[in-house]
């Protein structure tokens, strides 16, 4: 079974984000790392391919620059190869523009049974790309999966709902988005890290995928950021050290609020 996993290289979330003063979008110049959310999709893909008795796990990703370090992390985990759409023309792409690129990249890989994605990225978090990619490919999308099984040309998932979960099934090929924490992503081994350096990364431009400048990047996004302002600050209140009786202060506070 051949699986494509969508992965995103993002600015380190541990470092406070910054907006570009001119474009008013998130600065992405520094080092980019593999989005933690995507490690679950990669792990899930490796496990599913293993269970199915073989097949390739291919990474699909896009960046406006030539960054590959995040991809190498996922390759080191065990993915076989990657398609990286790397093009300055992609800067400023919105979620639909991104989905167009991903869908074309999946078609470029060819012979894919399953596309795995996270539910949303850590830096953009629109949460619409899995459905948009599926619609563009004409495939079903099973979203918010907390458990995934594949067999007999079908994929079945446990889909997170507000009340619990639904068991949902569709025939392949399909797109599945997985929630965080569904599997435990493996740490790349030293051997894996060394092997990743030589794994093929098919680097292409938007143009190579037949996508014009009107479909991706700023122009394709068809939206304007009109203002950026500081939100009203919330003031800190009382802070106490626990000397063994802090719970009494909490009870008093809850009483004052008439919660107890």
């Amino acid at each position, binding site marked *: 079974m051949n699986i494509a996993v969508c992965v995103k290289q993002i600015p380190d979330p541990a470092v406070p984000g910054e907006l570009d003063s001119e474009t008013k979008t998130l600065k992405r110049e520094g080092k980019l790392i593999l989005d*933690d*959310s995507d490690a679950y999709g990669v792990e899930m893909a490796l496990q599913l391919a293993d269970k199915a008795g073989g097949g390739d796990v291919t990474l699909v990703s896009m960046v406006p620059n030539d960054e590959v370090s995040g991809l190498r992390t996922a390759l080191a985990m065990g993915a076989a190869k990657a398609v990286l759409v790397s093009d300055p023309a992609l800067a400023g792409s919105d979620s639909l523009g991104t989905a167009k690129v991903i869908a074309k990249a999946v078609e470029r890989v060819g012979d894919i049974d399953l596309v795995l994605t996270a539910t949303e990225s850590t830096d953009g978090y629109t949460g619409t790309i899995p*459905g948009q990619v599926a619609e563009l490919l004409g495939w079903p999308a099973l979203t918010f999966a907390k458990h995934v099984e594949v067999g007999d040309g079908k994929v079945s998932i446990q889909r997170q709902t507000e009340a619990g979960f639904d*068991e949902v099934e*569709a025939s392949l090929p399909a797109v599945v988005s997985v929630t965080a924490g569904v599997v435990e992503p493996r740490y790349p081994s030293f051997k894996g890290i060394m092997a990743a350096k030589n794994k093929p990364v098919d680097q292409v431009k938007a143009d190579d995928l037949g996508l014009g400048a009107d479909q991706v990047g700023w122009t394709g996004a*068809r939206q304007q950021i*009109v203002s*950026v302002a500081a939100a009203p600050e919330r003031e800190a209140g009382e802070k106490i050290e*626990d000397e063994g009786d*802090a719970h009494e202060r909490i009870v008093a506070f809850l009483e004052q609020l008439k919660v107890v």
Partner: protein
Amino acid sequence: MPVGKVWVYAEAEEGQATSVTTELLTKAREVGETVEAVASVADADALATQVGEFGATKLYAVDPGDALSGVVGGAALVQLVEEHQPDLVLFAQSYDGRDALSRLSARLDRPVLTNGNSVDVDGDTVKVGTAIFGGNTIVEATFDGPKPYLAAIRPKSFAAEPSGGGAAEVVKVEGVDAGRAGEAKVLERHVEEREGPKLEDAEVVVSGGRGLGGAEHYEPLVEELAKLLKGASGASRAIVDAGWVPYAKQVGQTGKTVKPKVYIAIGISGATQHMVGMKGSDNIIAINKDGEAPIFGVADLGVVGDAHKVVPKLIEALKAKG
């Protein structure tokens, strides 16, 4: 000046309109001249009464059967948009809302603005505000290009106020073709028993983070305290990622937004990811070992201490009060 026709993608749970549906309808009344709802539900009549109370005059309804509700809803919208040409369609940033929105966006080739906390209209310009960087910055964006404009709004962004309207007129939508996407079937629904209120509707929310030290401490510390306070239990992203609790419990940027009367953060440091989901709470209590943790910057009452010592005593004290 309002826009002409605003649609709200309405959702129901256990036969009730979700609270975010009523919030969106309230906002739609403020920014639009005509407010109508679209839903993918089995029982359209029950929902028609509820969306009518919040100002929708019509409810376009499709029955998803055993297909995915949002997928069928999105396909129905494709058909309806063509026929009725709304100016703006508002979705909840929910599971099914995003399914419907993403399908519609790709089919119509329209961009989406998501994670909205505000919607403002001036003539033909629709502006959607989004809180970023843990809620310390508000970015406002407008749509360029052809209508309809599509936006997803986070729950709890607006207060819901009934309009006093009667039931919306139900217009059944037939012949919806979701293509291969419509072949995805719901085989079985599992309802997990929930004691107490829903996370988003609770007056009190108790959330746990990495500082709990292990998955086994979530139930006796976080859930137990939530139960005593008749509240709901939540979590930071760190412990959802670690697999301690399911995604549905996550509070934050990539999870839920809550605005309870009291929010109690136990062992949560206060990453920007988390703050954006709880900063709007009326009162915040934080318990954390690290006195420098950013959570104390927003806490009305901050306790620097070991959750394993403070919380059991707090639980005992509350039990003793009865």
